[in-house]
């Protein structure tokens, strides 16, 4: 036991003291925020403003209704062409248009479903959709006028019925907040599994490659060595996570104190989260699924690291099936968030390989409202059994792999090692 403690200490301290740990701890939240805001910014900046000639042969389109649409919507500008149609079609470029649409002589009672936006480039829906929307708004105006529907009636016609899902057993539950928290929690676990899982793999490979493994196993059992490494790196991940929670709390408190515009929206978001979600339970479950999921996967990654040689590609090809499991979990999570009580969500949150990610996405919807206690208990019990199995399995492979040089074993051979006596 004392020896495992020494190994944990070494693994933990050598990693936490590294500059890369400090930098990544600080940068990750910034990158995360940057990604969210950056995407919106890029979408805004990359909007294309085209000049489109509308060659109207139906006679419904007028300069007024087109000008009105151009004024309320600054996407691509439309321009009505009536007389010089032939010359525009022949040479739209020279006349300053990016493309043209020909509207044939159609009746207002029937729509028309084969208009073409003709141009010399391929445009995607990001360009096509706003043009289509603009034309349709004009078309609606034309229909309203012809049917003599005034503004008041138009307002009445736009009224619809809205249905919101409400859980009677958990009145506070707010599906939007829950969805947000579910996504964040699921993705955080996903990142942790992949990033720290591969750290375990690389750590084991390093020991094997520089042959320190041989010195260490002459002092401790290979199983202790593997367990020490997994626990040490797990603690590093936990430390990083606690620092992030501290970061959020600081932003929250500073935001509340200063009360700036941007800060208050963050504070509001967090407050909203506190009122609609059982935060202590979510945090406890996050801690559990994060650690148990980490043990489950890092044991497998450790076994792969011990079986591979210096070659990074070998390790990657062996790790592929394991990484696939993590990626499938994320796919299952998106399905589970859309329908948190459906059969996919229930089963995926109980089966060990996907439960760390999928269950974490469901829990914010409410326990026991959405996730009954028995499901949570079963999921946790299975995950504990699951990681005990993977750690045992990995230990068997590790013991043989760590001192084996030469040919890369296949998964079939590794499974044979695990079930071999002695």
């Amino acid at each position: 036991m004392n020896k495992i403690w020494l190994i944990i200490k070494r693994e933990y301290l050598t990693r936490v003291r590294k500059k890369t740990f400090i930098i990544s701890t600080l940068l990750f939240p910034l990158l995360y925020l940057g990604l969210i805001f950056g995407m919106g910014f890029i979408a805004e900046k990359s909007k294309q403003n085209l000049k489109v000639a509308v060659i109207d042969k139906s006679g419904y389109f007028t300069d007024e209704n087109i000008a009105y649409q151009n004024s309320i919507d600054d996407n691509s500008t439309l321009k009505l062409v009536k007389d010089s149609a032939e010359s525009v079609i022949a040479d739209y470029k020279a006349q300053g248009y990016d493309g043209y649409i020909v509207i044939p002589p159609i009746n207002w009672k029937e729509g028309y479903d084969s208009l073409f936006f003709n141009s010399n480039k391929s445009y995607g829906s990001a360009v096509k959709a706003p043009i289509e929307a603009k034309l349709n708004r004009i078309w609606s105006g034309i229909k309203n006028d012809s049917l003599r529907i005034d503004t008041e009636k138009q307002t009445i016609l736009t009224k619809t019925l809205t249905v919101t899902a409400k859980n009677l057993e958990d009145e506070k539950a707010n599906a939007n907040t829950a969805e947000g928290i579910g996504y964040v929690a699921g993705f955080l676990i996903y990142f942790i599994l992949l990033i720290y899982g591969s750290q375990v793999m690389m750590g084991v490979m390093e020991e094997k490659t520089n042959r320190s493994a041989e010195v260490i196993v002459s002092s401790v059992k290979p199983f202790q060595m593997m367990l020490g490494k997994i626990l040490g790196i797990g603690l590093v991940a936990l430390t990083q996570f606690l620092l992030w929670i501290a970061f959020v709390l600081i932003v929250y408190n500073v935001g509340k104190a200063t009360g700036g515009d941007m800060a208050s929206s963050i504070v509001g978001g967090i407050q909203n989260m506190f009122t609609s979600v059982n935060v202590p339970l979510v945090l406890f479950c996050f801690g559990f699924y994060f650690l148990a999921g980490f043990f489950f996967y890092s044991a497998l990654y450790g076994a792969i690291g011990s079986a591979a040689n210096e070659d990074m590609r070998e390790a990657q090809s062996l790790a592929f099936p394991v990484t696939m499991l993590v990626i499938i979990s994320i796919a299952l999570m998106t399905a589970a968030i859309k329908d948190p009580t459906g059969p996919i969500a229930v089963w995926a949150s109980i089966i060990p390989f996907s439960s760390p990610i999928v269950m974490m996405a469901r829990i914010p919807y409410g326990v026991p409202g959405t996730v009954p206690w028995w499901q949570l208990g079963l999921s946790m019990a299975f995950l504990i059994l699951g990681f005990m199995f993977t750690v045992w399995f990995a230990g068997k492979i590790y013991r043989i792999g760590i001192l084996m040089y030469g040919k890369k074993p296949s998964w079939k051979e590794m499974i044979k090692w695990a079930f071999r006596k002695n």
Partner: protein
Amino acid sequence: MTLLELKNLKKYFATQKAVDDISLKVEQGQIFGLLGPNGAGKTTLIRMITGIFYPDEGQIIFDGKKFDPIKDVEYIGYMPEERGLYKKMKIGEQTMYLAQLKGLKKADALAKIKQWFIKFEMEGWWNKKVEDLSKGMSQKLQFVTTVLHNPKLIILDEPFSGLDPVNSNLIKDEIYNLAKNGATIIFSTHRMEQVEEICDHIALVNKGSIILDGTVAKVKQDFKENLFSIGADQMPAVNGETPFDIVGTKAEKNIVRIKEGRSSNDVLQYLLQNGAQINSFNEILPSLNDIFIKLVEGTPAARQFQKV
């Protein structure tokens, strides 16, 4: 007193009988040379002695008791052929870590490390990283980490590779010292001149079995070919009567083989009677290198796969 005894050890792998029925005795304070060509099974044998592998069959008796791979590793120091240290770790911390893994208390470990670092002039290394060291320097460090916890049994796999003569001698003296203070040393190598110089006792392993086991002097006697080198003026001509055949010359000396049934006295007598002026007369014992090659010769250079 016997420190280590191996009884009928066997370890088979999927394609190899790596160790096939090996029995050995190593006495306390001995410097024991474990020799053998590449792939003979030396490393597998050593890994069983260090508790890394469990034997399929057979027994290891360590210090009078059955070997306990968990407790007894504290009394063993093992320096593998491939040097294994963490490149990014500071040297002081790394040495501390390895010493503590061997069961030393922190304070004891620190005192011992200081002592050894002073002895090997490594005091300034404490905060350096292993990646900053040259090959020879990291070799010295590895040696220190191997012997730091005062092991009863020290196993050194090619300890001199990559060392310059000065550092080689430093380590060699330390090996003698350790043996004098009661440590037992198993020394695995292919470098025969070092074995001849350092070891008391050798065992030659080939294809997983012991093919030769004895003291260096005895082994040499067993393999001698009755060769003598004679430095003499007016060497008499050789005919049917002479008690020896001349097999060659080397550095103006004749190399002779004494005929079956004759002794070296017969040779001297013959030479003196025939008016030779003898300047030197030496027995030529085979070098371990010759014996090694002779015994291992005919074995394919690479070990073939075999059915187990």
